[in-house]
Each structure stands twice: as structure tokens, then as C-alpha cells.
């Protein structure tokens, strides 16, 4: 739990407290970045850049309640930048083995989990056709379990646009799953 006291102390330029803030913030920032980008190294870079931005703009934060939303917004925007860069240098990783892996894991039961490397492949294969916004909305809603209001606030798009993007993302993934699995 991140409290206002810790943020206040970080504002004063205390590195030790900021280390604590990094420790508390990095995991969920990494989770969103990794699920959106499907790449460990890029997700780590995004987390690093996010933390530097937080340090630079920490004074803008008025209450601890908005801190988490604010961080999500920074992460999502950094991921958009990363995706834009990737569009210039596209790389295709997914193949038939990934679908086999998904099928195997599903057959193992609901408690079966994927390793980071495997998750990366699955996310890449499922979301390769989605736009940046659709990816963001899908990750925040279906994987991070956020409400449409929260997603609207984080991504800066209207609630109806969130719903529309989510519908298209689900449809696209569902069609792929139905076709290959």
C-alpha cells in the first residue's frame, strides 16, 4: 500500500524513500507494461522510464488516491510510445508451437500458469492484430480487472470508446482462439 506520507517524503528528495516507492510501484507497473508489450526487456525499460518520470513530476501529485491512476497513465503512455517504435521495426515471434503450448496449459486445469517467456508469446499471438488502444483496454479490463471508469481515466478516452475498443479486442481474440485452438 502506498501512502501519502511516503510520497511526501519522496518529494523532499529522499532517495531511500524513493527506493521504497520503486519497490512498491514497480510490480504493478511491470505487469501492465509486460501484458501490453509482451516483451520482458521492453517492459523493464518502460518501468524504469516511468519511475524517472514519477521522480521528476512527483510534486504534481496532490493525494495518494490518484497516485495509482497517475502511474497507470504514465505506463500506458510509455507503452504507446514503445509500440509506435516497434511499428517502425516490426518483429514477428508467434508460431504454431504457441497454440500448442496454450492448449497444453489449458488441459492442465485452471491452476496451470505460464512462465514470463511463455506469457510473452501468448500475449503476442493473441494481440498482434489489435490497435494500441484496444490492447490497453483489453489488458486493463480483462487482465488487470479494472472498471470502465478507471480505464477511461487512465487512457483518456470516453467510456463508450472504452466499451467499443473492448468489444473489438474481445471479438478479435475470441475469433483467433476459436480458429486455432
Amino acid at each position, binding site marked *: 500500500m502506498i501512502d501519502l506520507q511516503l510520497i511526501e517524503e519522496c518529494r523532499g528528495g529522499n532517495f531511500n524513500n524513493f527506493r521504497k516507492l*520503486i519497490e512498491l510501484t514497480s510490480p504493478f507497473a511491470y505487469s501492465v507494461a509486460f501484458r501490453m508489450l509482451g516483451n520482458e526487456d521492453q517492459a523493464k525499460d518502460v518501468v524504469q522510464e516511468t519511475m524517472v518520470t514519477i521522480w521528476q513530476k512527483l510534486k504534481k501529485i496532490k493525494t495518494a488516491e490518484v497516485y495509482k491512476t497517475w502511474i497507470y497513465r504514465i505506463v500506458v503512455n510509455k507503452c504507446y510510445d514503445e509500440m509506435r517504435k516497434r511499428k517502425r521495426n516490426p518483429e514477428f515471434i508467434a508460431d504454431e508451437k504457441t497454440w500448442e503450448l496454450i492448449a497444453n496449459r489449458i488441459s492442465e486445469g485452471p491452476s496451470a500458469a505460464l512462465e514470463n517467456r511463455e506469457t510473452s508469446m501468448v500475449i503476442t499471438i493473441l494481440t498482434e492484430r489489435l490497435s494500441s488502444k484496444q490492447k490497453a483496454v483489453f489488458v486493463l479490463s480483462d487482465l488487470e480487472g479494472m472498471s470502465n471508469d478507471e480505464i477511461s481515466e487512465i487512457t483518456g478516452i470516453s467510456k463508450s470508446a472504452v466499451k467499443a475498443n473492448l468489444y473489438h479486442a474481445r471479438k478479435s481474440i475470441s475469433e483467433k482462439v476459436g480458429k486455432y485452438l
Partner: protein
Amino acid sequence: MKPENEKYNKVLNLLRVSEPTLDSTKEIEREVIKRITKINHFGLIFSEVIDFLFGWVYIGWVRRSLITASIVLILVFVYQQGIILKRIDVLSRQTVVIDKENTSSPTDEIEKLLMVYKNSGRRFPSKTITISESQMKELLESVNELQIKYKDLENLIEEDPELKKLIEKKLIEYNHTKINL
């Protein structure tokens, strides 16, 4: 539930269960602190250079002198602007003869009188009679035309003695005085 949706839900559940794990929080922490320190170091150097170059403005008496000097400069500027505007106003009221040959020189007495009248009107605003340039031009043209016609008529009368006699007679009748043409 459609088989497609069932598969979709299973894949989604698999992804939800497989939360990305960040194994190198310390590494990220180190990198972030390194970058922040670097930014802060550059910021510190910049502020030191600025302080060295312009730090003297924070000395009390220098600060006060600069404020006074700037106020004086502003006042001088305003005063100068006032004088310039006044001078422009005076100049705009004066008649400027640029080239004697290019300007129309009044040849006849009436034209001279009109010019004097025009100029005197400008010099003494209390006795000003407003007349436009075009009206003045029209007046001068009509005076010229009238003079030409008068000379033509004079010539005609001179050339024809009978006509001369007739006109003299008519004029005597009209004015009861003898007029020599």
C-alpha cells in the same frame, strides 16, 4: 456458452493466473537511481553556472540599483515616445514642397490668391475653412477654363468690329455706362 467463448475464457483465465513476475526489482531500482542522480547532477551543474554568471543580481544594493535603472529607462522611453509623437503631429500639419518643378506653380493672380488662402487656412486653424483637395483642383480648373474662354471671346471681338460695336452698345444699354473693350 459457445465453445469459442469457453475457449476464450480459459485462455483469459490462464493469462490472469500467469501474473508477470518482476525478478529484478533491485536492478530497476539501481538503474532508476543512477538516471535520477545523473539528471540531478546535470541540473546542479547548470544551476552552478547560472549562479556564477548571474548570482551577483541577488546582492541587495545591486538589485535595488538595477530596479531603479530599469524604472528610469522606462520613463525615458515613454518621454521620448511622447516627444516623437508630438513632432510627427507638427510635421504632418506642415506643407512640404519637395521639388519646385514637380509642384504646380500658380501662374495667375487668382491661383496665387487661392494658394495663399489655402496655406493661411492651414497656418491659422482658428480661421480654417475646410475644403477638400479635389474641390480645390476642380475650382482651379474651372478658373483656368474661364480665363481661356474670356481670351477667346476677346480675340473674337477684336477681329470683328461690327460685333464689337454691337456688344458695346448692348453693354451701354445694360449698365448705362460706356465700356471700352
